[in-house]
């Protein structure tokens, strides 16, 4: 009797010890990763779904999500503060395409080479633009999350009605817009809507007609190669469209959502905006242009070639994270073709892999990806610089001032050159 009790107690104790031990190991393997996942336009709801998929496959990992900042500038200000304080609370950051160089230069990002692989091999299957913007000093600074680009949206119905073909150059566009504006006789109908307020979009407003002449703003090493005559001509092109009544006079006040809202209200024939606008035109209840919208490549300058401004978001691991291997593993998953396909199908977020654009499931879910592919592949990256904050500020402030006609295009371009000569060398 006595002996049996003793045995039972022993077994119970042993079971307890084993149980405790396994509980401890489970506890030891449980890693919590905190991810900054951008603002509402970066679709944290879809990212959460991907994180759930990852958690299901990796029971030891729990992923917390943090969101904030409606615009790229607001997010940059927030992240600069957090990272400057060497905060280890956040392991992974979603950052705008323009930021890897600056953040890596500041020592805020963990190089991913030893976790994921050599940049040249790893980035090969992605769109070409990402292999330049995510490699800093030969190291893998970040991995592509999803793409974005400036698109030329247009009113298919109005072009068809007035027998106008998709314009290939800016001059053709101005002529087409003027023809439609005259025929419609609506004083509120704008020919073209671009962003002229001093926001990030204005950097693209400066670059589009400049690139459209086949010029580059910087070489591969980041040195500025500004062709002043071409840049002046680019800005003058916008102003001449203002004079012709194609672009509205207060263009220097126009922000990204203004273009979206005015196009939705049927007041715009051609509009330049990011990829997210497509869903707004198509799905929003207050959109008066549902089913009337087309997408085409951006016009070139006469004798030049079409080029657009590529955006998009990247995953980066914090240099101050305490869980770098686990974080890098998650980043690898989030930048995989499966994740890219999921985001394309579920949220029509543009894919970072060329192959996804022709994937049968994706084309079925988002037919306009066929048109989008050519635009994105022809896309160029904004200047890559460790001082991008300054580069962006100088270009957008000056562009806005030129569009407000407080500076001439030539003066504006000279100012851009002299202010950036020090930082982009």
């Amino acid at each position, binding site marked *: 009797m006595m002996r049996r009790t003793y045995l039972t107690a022993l077994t119970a104790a042993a079971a307890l010890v084993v149980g405790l031990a396994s509980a401890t190991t489970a506890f030891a393997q449980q890693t919590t990763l905190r991810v900054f996942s951008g603002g509402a336009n970066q679709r944290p709801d879809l990212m959460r779904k991907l994180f759930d998929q990852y958690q299901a496959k990796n029971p030891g990992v729990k992923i917390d999500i943090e969101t904030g900042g409606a615009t790229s500038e607001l997010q940059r200000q927030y992240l600069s503060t957090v990272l400057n304080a060497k905060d280890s609370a956040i392991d992974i950051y979603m950052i705008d395409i323009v930021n890897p160089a600056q953040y890596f230069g500041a020592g805020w990002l963990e190089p991913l080479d030893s976790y994921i692989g050599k940049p040249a091999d790893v980035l090969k299957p992605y769109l070409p633009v990402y292999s330049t913007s995510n490699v800093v000093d030969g190291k893998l600074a970040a991995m592509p999350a999803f793409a974005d680009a400036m698109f030329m949206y247009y009113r298919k119905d109005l072009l068809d009605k007035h027998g106008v073909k998709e314009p290939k150059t800016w001059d053709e566009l101005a002529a087409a817009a003027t023809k439609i504006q005259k025929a419609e006789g609506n004083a509120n109908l704008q020919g073209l809507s671009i962003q002229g307020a001093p926001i990030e979009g204005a950097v693209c407003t400066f670059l589009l007609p400049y690139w459209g002449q086949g010029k580059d703003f910087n070489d591969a090493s980041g040195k500025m190669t500004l062709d002043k005559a071409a840049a002046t001509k680019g800005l003058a092109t916008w102003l001449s469209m203002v004079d012709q009544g194609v672009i509205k006079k207060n263009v220097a006040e126009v922000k990204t959502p203004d273009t979206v809202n005015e196009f939705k209200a049927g007041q715009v024939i051609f509009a330049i905006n990011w990829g997210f606008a497509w869903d707004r035109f198509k799905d929003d209840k207050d959109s008066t242009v549902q089913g009337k919208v087309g997408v085409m490549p951006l016009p070139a300058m006469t004798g030049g070639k079409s080029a657009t401004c590529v955006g998009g978001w990247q995953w980066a691991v914090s240099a101050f994270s305490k869980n770098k291997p686990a974080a890098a593993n998650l980043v690898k998953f989030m930048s995989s073709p499966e994740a890219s396909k999921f985001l394309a199908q579920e949220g029509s977020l543009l894919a970072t892999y060329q192959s996804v654009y022709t994937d049968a499931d994706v084309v079925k879910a988002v037919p306009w990806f066929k048109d989008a592919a050519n635009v994105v592949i022809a896309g160029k990256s904004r200047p890559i610089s460790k001082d991008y904050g300054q580069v962006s*500020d100088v270009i957008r402030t000056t562009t806005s001032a030129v569009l407000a006609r407080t500076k001439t295009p030539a003066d504006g371009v000279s100012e851009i050159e002299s202010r950036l000569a020090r930082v982009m060398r």
Partner: protein
Amino acid sequence: MATATAIDRLRDPSEKTLGVMLLAPAFLLLALIVVYPIGKLIWNSFFDLRLSGGSGIKFVGLENYALVFKDPDFWNAAKNTVLITLITVPGALVVGMGLAMLANLPFKRKWPVRLALLLPWALPLAFAGLIFAWFFHTEYGVVNDIVRRAVSPAEPAMWLLRPNWAFAAICLTIIWKTSSFMALILLAGLQMIPKSLYEAAEVDGASKWQQFWQITIPMLMPSIIVALIFRTITALQTFDIPYTMTKGGPGNSTETLAMLIHKTTIDYLDVGYGSTLAVCMFVLSLCVTAFYLKRIGKNA
């Protein structure tokens, strides 16, 4: 033996020791949140401290200060800041005085007047800036709507895209926002003036105008000085309203010193030069405050 005396001394401190002990917590707190940051700011201003450069931190002595004096952006921002101060401080004083006099009238119900006084003051600066930015918007703004209906339906003015108009719009917004603070302080001062002074003046045949200049203003002087000091210091630090209305634009024609410091440190990540600019602004505020304190000394 020695410890015993030390404990005794703590238990029954001399007046001097007690004073030190009582002041110590406040002094330590101030040292931590005022002296240390200012010291660190001045320290940083002697370094080339660019977070984006990756070139490391380099001691550069007074080089940053030499750059400030050659920097046209600094002089532009300093000019704008001083202009905003020179326009909005007297502007708010005049409007605030009017509001205070109005609120001091013997209304049957005092609360609607006082509420109207308090509202602009209670509104966050950034909200005021955003609201007025909408007012002055070329197409959607109420200002242009009124102009269109009342004056002429011609070409709408682009208020915030013309440097001088944008500057005027910002000053107007600041005056609207800050005159209620002026009015509150002046109202408190007005209520301290004994009625008997006005009665005596009336007996002597003084007009309302004479009463205002001979009684109200002199009796109100201490309140006016206090209000002016506070308002001037906050005017030198103007940031929120121009930032939300124009972001310093068009170009940098409405950029203030505080905005330039913010841009240099947060957007450009140039902490060294940003600190230098901040020290310059600190010196400017210090000079203005010293000037006022000296004037008060004379008055007292």
